């Protein structure tokens, strides 16, 4: 049985640990196309690393199937699965130099010393480490170690490369730089990358497909832009950030809009979207992107087709290209507006100013 492509399918995958009643992974179904860059995103303990380790073959699922290239791989070793893993702390062998680390997989496969040296040197060149080939891992910087780990994992031409928090050991600047390096490697190798992270910026910056997880379950999976712009529920919206999530009660339904009220909101219209069958009286969450919220002085008349609520400026944070304006809480949620800095400084707001926070009605999104 030879696995020839890196498409992955998880079917009803469950993982429980001995002595624990909760499911670390709770019935996950997911299809990943060959050659995709996928990010599993979620807080620590959400099961994302467990899924990665099950795909890698370091843990067996309690239930369900894991298919790679159409074959059920449960019970196979990592090399039979044609997967390779890059560990969180890289796990480079401290007693071997860069070349021997990279050539390790070839050595255990019985390749001759001259041949594997040649193969390792080719890979070393690919990750631009030629002048460091004879160094020991302890003599390398974090970014260099990461490239060695990547090269070591890639040398057997796996069909799937699994990366466990690959950037968490690096400082902020290097992290942004290595993000691009990972993307470049993935394009060069043309294989499936599965990357686990708890940083949403990282996930949406590099992934073709973002999988948001909570408590062992997938909350939403899709292209980065969909997940960020159109979160399906409060959890995804809050985890990815950039959204105001507001809660209110449906007062009435007018065509394809629900009129929502709460102690702070009066008659805010929200498109019903996919949530048909809403009845007046239902408690609902809806999201409005922070950069869709416009702040106006209260004396200005507000136009039709817009929702607005009166609020007060609680804090102002300059962020460079935009200004983050913190407003009053609406229910339990703080309202935040991202105002482009040129717009903000044409009429700067001060803490305590009363403003109208408004948005185009169609920008609001009903959450599940």
């Amino acid at each position, binding site marked *: 049985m030879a696995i020839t492509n890196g498409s992955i399918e998880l079917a009803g995958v469950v993982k429980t640990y001995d002595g624990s009643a909760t499911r670390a992974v709770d019935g996950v179904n997911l299809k990943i196309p060959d050659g995709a860059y996928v990010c599993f995103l979620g807080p620590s303990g959400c099961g994302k690393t467990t899924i990665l380790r099950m795909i*890698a*073959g*370091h843990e067996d699922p309690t239930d369900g199937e894991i298919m790679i290239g159409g074959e059920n791989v449960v019970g196979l*070793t*990592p*090399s039979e699965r044609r*997967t*390779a*893993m890059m*560990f969180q*702390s890289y*796990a*480079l*062998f*401290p*007693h071997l*130099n860069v*070349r021997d680390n990279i050539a*390790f*997989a070839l*050595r*255990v*496969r019985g390749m001759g010393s001259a041949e594997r040296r040649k193969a390792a040197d080719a890979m070393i060149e690919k990750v631009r480490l030629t002048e460091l*080939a*004879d*160094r*020991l891992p302890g003599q390398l910087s974090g970014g260099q170690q990461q490239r060695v780990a990547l090269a*070591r*994992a890639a040398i*057997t031409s796996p069909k799937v490369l699994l990366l466990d928090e690959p950037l968490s050991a690096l400082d902020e600047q290097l992290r942004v730089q290595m993000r691009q390096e990972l993307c470049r490697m993935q394009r060069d190798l043309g294989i499936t990358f599965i990357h686990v992270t708890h940083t949403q910026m990282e996930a949406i910056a590099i992934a073709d497909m973002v999988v948001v997880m909570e408590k062992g379950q997938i909350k939403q999976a899709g292209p980065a832009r969909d997940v960020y712009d159109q979160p399906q529920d409060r959890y995804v919206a809050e985890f990815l950030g950039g959204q105001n999530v507001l809660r209110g009660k449906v007062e009435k339904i007018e065509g394809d809009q629900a009129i929502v009220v709460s102690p702070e909101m009066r008659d805010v219209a929200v498109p019903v979207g996919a949530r048909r069958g809403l009845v007046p009286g239902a408690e609902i969450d809806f999201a409005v992107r922070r950069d869709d919220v416009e702040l106006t002085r209260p004396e200005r008349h507000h136009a039709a087709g817009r929702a607005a609520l009166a609020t007060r400026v609680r804090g102002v944070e300059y962020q460079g290209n935009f200004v983050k304006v913190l407003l009053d809480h609406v229910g339990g949620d703080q309202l935040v507006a991202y105002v482009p800095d040129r717009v903000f400084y044409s009429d700067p707001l001060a803490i305590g100013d009363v403003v109208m926070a408004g948005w185009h009605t169609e920008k609001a999104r009903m959450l599940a």
Partner: protein
Amino acid sequence: MSASDNALSGEVVRSTTARRRRRGGRSWTFYVLAALFSLYVLALYGPMICIYILSFQDVRGGLVFPMKGFSLHWFNDLFTQVRTGDVKGSFDRSIRLAVMVTVLTVVISFMSGLAFRKRFVGDTVVFYLMIGSLVAPGLVLGIGVGLIWSWLGIEPSWYTSALGAQLSWTLPFGVLVMFAVMSRFQNVWEEAARDLGATPMQTIRLVVIPILAPGLIAVALFGFTLSYDEFARTLQTAGSLNTLPLEIWSMTLNVTSPSLYSLGTVTTIVSFVIIGACLGAIALIQKRRAERVAHD
């Protein structure tokens, strides 16, 4: 001058005093501690150095200072005179026994170091039983082993009962050293090896043993030296043939010449040669690695 200026100049004054003290004389505590440490070193090595010096006396030499002349007479005496005891035979046995103890200690300590990374049923009990054997009086333990052997009707000998009695002493040490070594071992290295396609045996051979090598050499050194000069546990278990420490002890009862001291000097030299050889081996391995790095 404002209050903050005052505080600032106070800071400057304090830091210059500190600098002066650092550059000039040392504080009195340095001299007290230095004297204390010198005394400690003297007490540690003084008695042994006395023995080494006295072993180099000439034929008129006695068991106490003052030193009479200077020669290698008593070393010669040691290896030629029969009356001094079976030095060669006991030395031979001690080395063989120490090698057996070393091999067993390294292998068993290595395996328990790997095993104790995971919890298993009774792990705490096993651990405390091991420590118990470390604190048990050696002489009593030796007598116990001797008793069991005679009860079983087996003739005690240096390579059976004494081997067992010595292991009860070297294994706890070896395992404790191994625990310390393993605390810096990352299990993820093994996982990485497996991920790269290594079999369990390849993982042990190519990853675990090389990484743990310095620790394993330390365990071996412990095993060897603890066995080589073990007395209490061996006394009742060695059977009819003596190991070197037993031979030296019996010589102290009937040999009244400085050849006893020369024996002390010779055995010390052997110990140092072995330790030196081990350290040399480590240095050589490191040099080879460095050279390979340089040549590649």
